[in-house]
Structure formats: C-alpha cells, structure tokens
C-alpha cells in the first residue's frame, strides 16, 4: 500500500472523493458499529439459540439481534454464538443438562417460517433452564422480511418483561444529529434509527446547524432547532410524511430547547426575544406563548415531569448553571441540583424518580443521575471529559448520551446502573444530540 500512497494526485480530486464518501455516510443506511466497554458479572445468563428457518436465506439473524439487545441492557449476559453447541428450535428439543452445564438460567428457541409474498412469521419459546418450565410460547404476527429486526426487538422486549417485570424498550427508536463534511461544506442531518442504531433514516437535512431533537409523546413527530434561516428557529416535523411546521421564529434572539408536554399539546421552549433566555410554554393548537420565568439569567433546557405538573430547567441565576423546578403553570422555581460545580440539560425518568443531567467539574463534564427516591443521591454514568445530552429510555433501564472522542462526536448507550456502556459510532462524521423515543405503538 506504500507505493500507491506516494502517487501524487490533485488535492481537489481527493477532496471530492472524501466529500462523496462522507455525504454517502448516513444516507447509505449503514449500521452503527457497536462495542461493549464494560461487563456485569451479576447479569442474568441467557442463551438465545439461532432460530431455525425455512425458505430463502434471511437478511437478519434474529437471535443475534436479541443477544445484542440483552447484552446492551446490562441486565442480561447472553451466551456467545460460538458457545452454542446445540440448536434446538422448539421446547421439546431442548436438552436441559447441556444448558445447565453452560450455567444458563434461561434459554430462547424459535423458528422463522416463510409466510409467502416476502412475509415471514416468527415463533419463539422462552424456558427456565433450572425449572425446565416454559415461560413464553408465542407466534408473532406475520411481518415483511425487511422488518425482522423489529420483530426480534419485540421478542426481546417480551422476554425482558417476563423475566424482569419491567417493560422492555428495545423496540424503540432514537433520534440524533450528524455533522458530515468539513468547514463550510458541513451537512447536518436529523436521523431516526432503531434503538440499536440500525436502519438510520434521514428526517431533515441542512447546511446550517440542527440541534435539540425532541420526540412527541406519540412518537410521530420531532421538534428541533434549525439555523437554516441564519437564526435559531423551532420546527415540528412529522417523521413519516416529512411535512413540517415552523412553530417558533422570533426574529430577535434564541428560539430553542423544545420539550413536549406529556399530553403532546404543548411545547416548553427557551426564547430570548425578551432580552435573555426565558422558559415559555407554547400551546400548539392556539400558538399562544405563555412566559414562565422572569430573571436576568439564562433559563433554558426545559423538560416536563411525567405527570405534566412540573417543569425542570437549567438556570444560572445562582451564578453557575444548575437544575431548577417550577410548576408547569408558572411560579417560583426551586433549585434541585446541589452537587457539582454546574449541572444542566435534565432528562427525567418515566416515573419521575430519577433526573439525569450533565455535571461539570473543572473541565470534566460527565453524565450524572440524581435519584430523588434516595434523597437526591447522585451516581455517575460516564467518564467524561465532554459528555452531554443524556436521554432516558422510556423504561429508564438505559440512557443515551453524546461523548467527544478526538475531533468527532460519538453516541453511547449506557445501562442505568452505569455498568455496561456501548458505543454507537457512525463510520463517518460527527454524531451528537441523541434523544430516545417513546414506546412504539403496534
């Protein structure tokens, strides 16, 4: 390879090649590269046996998708494919002694049947290895072959819920922003992908910055900030039809930080046309804006409590940014975060008990979670130094956040206990601003 490298080629041709490669990145629909950085010895061992299949070869290894889901959760440790020595596809074929010897608590077997016309039907069984007891035996509705990953995530969710008692959140989607290209040739994209990073779809593209994507509670729309006009503006876009509405575009100042109310009827925003960023609530039907804060500080990054009664937000009214809470109808804010030099960008768990935030100490910014049910005890989920944008999964079992490695942004999924972290890396470009979507509706 040394010889061709020495060849002198015109630089612009090179740049064109690079540009083409970069631009092709997300649009090419390539998967994110996944990598487990930690492990959890106490995780429950589960064997997911490769599913038997009939008909043409399948594009998706259903068992592999499920194994990765389980490993990423931190709650389970799935047996590596290479250690799976027998391949039963139904309960009657399981030799339990084999799986006990492999120290597995649970085993999943199944089969993918050709249902004709490009459709497949997946059947699966979950067994307790020690009790030799069937826990689940289900036939999924027929689905297009192209949706097999989604079917696998739904099976993983059912198994997760059966064993842990908590609804699974593998069959969900995530949104994030990519910046691809260099300098003035940067293209920003709002992308929606499966929770494991597969099936990325471009929702919006711009030559100027995009940021702060926020899912509507029904998962059909995303509100986001775009600089395409030169100043920040807030759009609400339907991710299926692509149609979008401009909902906040004050010519003066910031239009930023959209957050949906739990009923999907309102957006909390940060607007600064009044002189400095204040929290407002926008009623989407009437377009009426109601101002909630009134201070000379930066008030931004609002997020609703799950019951819709309160709003958490970032304010530097005490000098440095900290998290505050106030009634959603307005009223005196109270400070919530006290540990660390500064705290910002709250994400609240579905039960309202945990608040994830970016905590800065010196030049190190890490993801911290404050547990209100434990008297505000704080735990750290990430090592820093420039971690941001925490976003809880809808079941609060995991979070997404953005980190910087070298010159590029990468996304991590981390289990809520911080024991398992998985990097989701686009092969090209800079990835940032993750937002975990709600449960999908079947």
């Amino acid at each position, binding site marked *: 390879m040394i010889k061709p490298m020495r060849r002198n080629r015109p630089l612009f041709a090179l740049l064109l090649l690079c540009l083409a490669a970069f631009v092709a990145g997300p649009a090419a629909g390539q998967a994110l590269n996944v990598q487990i950085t930690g492990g959890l010895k106490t995780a429950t061992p589960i064997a997911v046996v490769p599913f038997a299949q009939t008909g043409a070869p399948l594009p998706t290894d259903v068992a592999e998708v499920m194994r990765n889901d389980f490993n990423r959760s931190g709650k389970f440790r799935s047996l590596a494919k290479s250690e799976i020595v027998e391949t039963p596809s139904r309960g009657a074929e399981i030799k339990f002694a084999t799986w006990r010897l492999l120290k597995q608590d649970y085993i999943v077997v199944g089969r993918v049947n050709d249902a004709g016309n490009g459709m497949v039907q997946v059947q699966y069984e979950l067994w307790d290895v020690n009790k030799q007891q069937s826990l689940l035996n289900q036939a999924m509705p027929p689905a297009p072959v192209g949706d097999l990953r989604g079917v696998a995530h739904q099976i993983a969710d059912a198994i997760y819920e059966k064993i842990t008692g908590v609804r699974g959140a593998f069959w969900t989607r995530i949104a994030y922003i990519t910046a691809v290209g*260099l300098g003035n040739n940067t293209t920003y994209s709002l992308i929606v992908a499966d929770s494991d990073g597969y099936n990325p779809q471009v929702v919006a593209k711009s030559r100027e910055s995009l940021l702060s994507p926020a899912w509507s509670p029904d998962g059909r729309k995303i509100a986001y900030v775009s*600089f395409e006009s030169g100043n920040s503006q807030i759009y609400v876009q339907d991710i299926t039809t692509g149609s979008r509405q401009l909902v906040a575009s004050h010519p003066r100042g910031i239009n930023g930080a959209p957050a949906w109310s739990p009923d999907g009827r309102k957006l909390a925003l940060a607007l600064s046309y009044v002189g400095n960023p204040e929290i407002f609530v926008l009623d989407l039907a009437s377009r009426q804006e109601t101002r909630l804060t009134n201070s000379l500080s*930066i008030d931004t990054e609002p997020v609703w409590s799950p019951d819709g009664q309160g709003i958490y937000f970032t304010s530097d009214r005490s000098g440095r940014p900290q998290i505050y809470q106030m009634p959603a109808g307005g009223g005196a804010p109270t400070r919530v975060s006290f540990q660390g030099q500064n705290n910002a960008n709250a994400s609240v768990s579905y039960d309202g008990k945990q608040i994830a935030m970016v905590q800065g100490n010196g030049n190190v*910014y890490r993801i911290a979670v404050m547990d209100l049910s434990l008297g505000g005890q704080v735990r750290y989920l990430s090592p820093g130094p420039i971690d941001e944008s925490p976003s809880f999964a809808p079941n609060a079992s995991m979070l997404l956040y953005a980190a910087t490695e070298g010159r590029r942004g990468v996304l991590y999924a981390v289990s809520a206990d911080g024991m398992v972290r998985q990097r989701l890396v686009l092969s090209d470009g800079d990835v940032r*601003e993750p937002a975990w979507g709600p449960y999908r509706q079947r």
Partner: protein
Amino acid sequence: MNKTARVALVALLCVGAAACSKKQEVKPQQAPEQAPVTQPAPETGKYTPADLDTDACLRQRVVYFDFDKDEIKPEFQQIMACHAKYLQDRPMAQIRLEGNTDERGTREYNLGLGERRGNAVSSALQANGGSASQLNVVSYGKEKPVCREHNEDCWSKNRRVEIIYTAK
C-alpha cells in the same frame, strides 16, 4: 489494483486529506491577543466603506472573551470605539454580531452564553455612539468553532463575537 486495494487507497488518501485540512483549520484567522493598534481612528473626517478594508482598527472584527464571561476586556475598547464611529458615520450600515462559545457546557446553555457576549458587544457599540437599529445579535453557541482541539488555547479562540457588516 484489485477492488479492496482501491477502496483502501481511497480511504487512506481521505484520511490524509482530512488530516491536512484539519491542520489548516486549526490556524486561527486572527490571534486572540490583539496586536496594538498603530493607526488610531480618524478624529476628523468620516469613515467610508473603503476603510473597512484598510483601517487597522476597523479590520479587527473579532472580540474574545474569558471563560463563562461576557465582559468586554480593556484591549477591545478601541475596536468598540472605531466600529461605533463607523456606525455613526454610516447610518445605513448594519452589523450582525455573532456570539460564540467554547465546547464546555451544553449546547442550549451555550446559545444563551453566546447571546450574552453578543449583547455585551452590542451594548458597548451603543455606548460608543452606535444605534440599536444598526445592530443585530445572533448566537451560535458552540455550533461554529474555529478550532477543534480540546485545550485552553483552542477554547480561547472559540470564545468570541464576530462583527459582520451586513450593510456597509
């Protein structure tokens, strides 16, 4: 050359080109420490658009800030004075003040901080005789860094307000 080798070659060349272009990008367009202004703004006579390209003071259009601060440092007062005078001399002139921050802190908070810096420059220009109607502040927060290293040298170049003449 087989296909794999060709793909690998393109990849290597791309990495090389990206490395080169990144090096160029690191070079500050203007050093954060301002060179002493040798040519004071003319006390008599009015500025003309040509002075934007030739006047040593007017040519300086970046104001740098300390970490998490929005105070205009003394070394930038002279720049405030000459741009304010230009605004006075040219009532049709318009300036867009683009506020920027370093990478520390969240994106939305930094939008607020960049705006504070833009407002500080706007206030200083008005205090020196510019009119509010000639000034427009836009904050990009940390979205438009001129330098992408993770160190104070780089951060100090990114904590800035750029003075952009949208009408001369």
